[in-house]
């Protein structure tokens, strides 16, 4: 099907969202809670765009969840969209006061954050990408706890969870550095739980937890012969390819 984005005609497929089409067409839309690996959540609302319906009325929709339909007309930049994003930036930076990432957003949109009391050490913007990542890993130990203005990301009872394998996929996907990971003396501490770290057989870097290795082995059904960190594994693969191409 064809849809119009900013007066430009582009191809779209049923089941796609506006944001997915825009990403493919290199049309920029800012997002905080979106990651191509997961379904759109519609939580941060930074990706709001305007659509024009059949009667000519404009309205704001979240591009990460709005499904395309034939002949859809989309505007990705307007005064209204700008104002919305500005205010959202002001609120996000006001909440996540300790996060340089959030403060940069405020700077980018040239707004003065409205600093909330009691949030001086807050980094999290509640984008929930960590929850998605953890679920994807199959552990699902993170939850959006409580509701309303008290919403926060936690493990149940704020304790180390049985299922947590210390893979830190949550910390890696977190845009604000809100998830604390401590690595020292051969151990990793994350989400109230301490893990031993395994060294890379090649370079000696501590890179994974035994739980993580076991998880990968269970998933692939293959025993790992040699524990290699990501860098070394890539290098090894490259060597193999080189050998074959000679």
């Amino acid at each position, binding site marked *: 099907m064809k849809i119009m984005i900013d007066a430009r005609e582009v191809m779209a497929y049923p089941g796609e969202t506006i944001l997915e089409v825009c990403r493919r067409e290199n049309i920029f839309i800012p997002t905080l809670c979106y990651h191509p690996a997961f379904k759109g959540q519609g939580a941060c609302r930074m990706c709001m765009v305007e659509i024009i319906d059949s009667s000519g009325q404009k309205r704001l929709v979240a591009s990460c969840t709005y499904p395309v339909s034939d002949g859809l007309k989309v505007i990705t930049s307007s005064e209204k969209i700008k104002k919305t994003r500005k205010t959202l930036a002001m609120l996000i930076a006001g909440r996540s006061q300790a996060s340089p990432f959030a403060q940069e957003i405020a700077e980018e949109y040239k707004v003065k954050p409205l600093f909330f009391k009691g949030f001086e050490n807050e980094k999290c913007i509640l984008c929930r990408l960590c929850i998605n990542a953890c679920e994807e890993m199959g552990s699902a130990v993170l*939850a959006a706890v409580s509701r309303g203005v008290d919403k926060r990301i936690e493990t*149940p*009872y704020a304790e180390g969870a049985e*299922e947590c394998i210390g893979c830190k996929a949550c910390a890696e996907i977190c845009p604000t550095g809100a998830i604390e990971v401590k690595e020292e003396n051969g151990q990793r501490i994350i989400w109230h739980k301490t893990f031993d770290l395994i060294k890379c057989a090649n370079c000696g870097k501590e890179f994974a937890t035994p739980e993580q290795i076991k998880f990968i082995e269970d998933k692939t059904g293959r025993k790992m012969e040699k524990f290699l960190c990501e860098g070394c594994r890539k290098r090894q693969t490259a060597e193999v390819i080189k050998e074959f191409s000679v």
Partner: protein
Amino acid sequence: MVKAADEGKMLADIREILDNYPPEERYILAVMQDMQKRFNYLPKAGLKTLAFYVGVPLSRVYAMASFYKAFSLTPKGQYVFRVCDGTACHIKGSKILIEQLYKCLGIRPGETTPDGRFSIETVNCLGACALAPVVVVNDRVYAKVIPGDVEKIIREYGGYAHEGKNED
């Protein structure tokens, strides 16, 4: 500390509640309601067993338990003062009743006295707006409560000698 015998009884109770429902996700809420009624809160063992029974991660069950207002993750007092703070009650002075309760019991909504006898909660609306302001203690409804009544009501439940720490 919960004694081993109590724990055994609790697990049996949890089992009994679960036996009333098929292991499907949609009964999580109903099971939690029953647990809340039985124990006055949702015990950790209850949530863990429920998650296992239904086959969902504990995080999901915990998220629900913390999301819905009907549930409490810590034990509530023997007598729960539910102060209605619906609009009708609010404009008729429920805020002052909460203050008076604080003066008498030394606790705020959501808290329980150290001896485990009293808890205070605010509720949105009990639908008894014509009787505003309303305070419900366990199942008994007190209508058109004025600040001076608060102490009298507490006395009905054995009274409470708060040390007067909050007399400011």
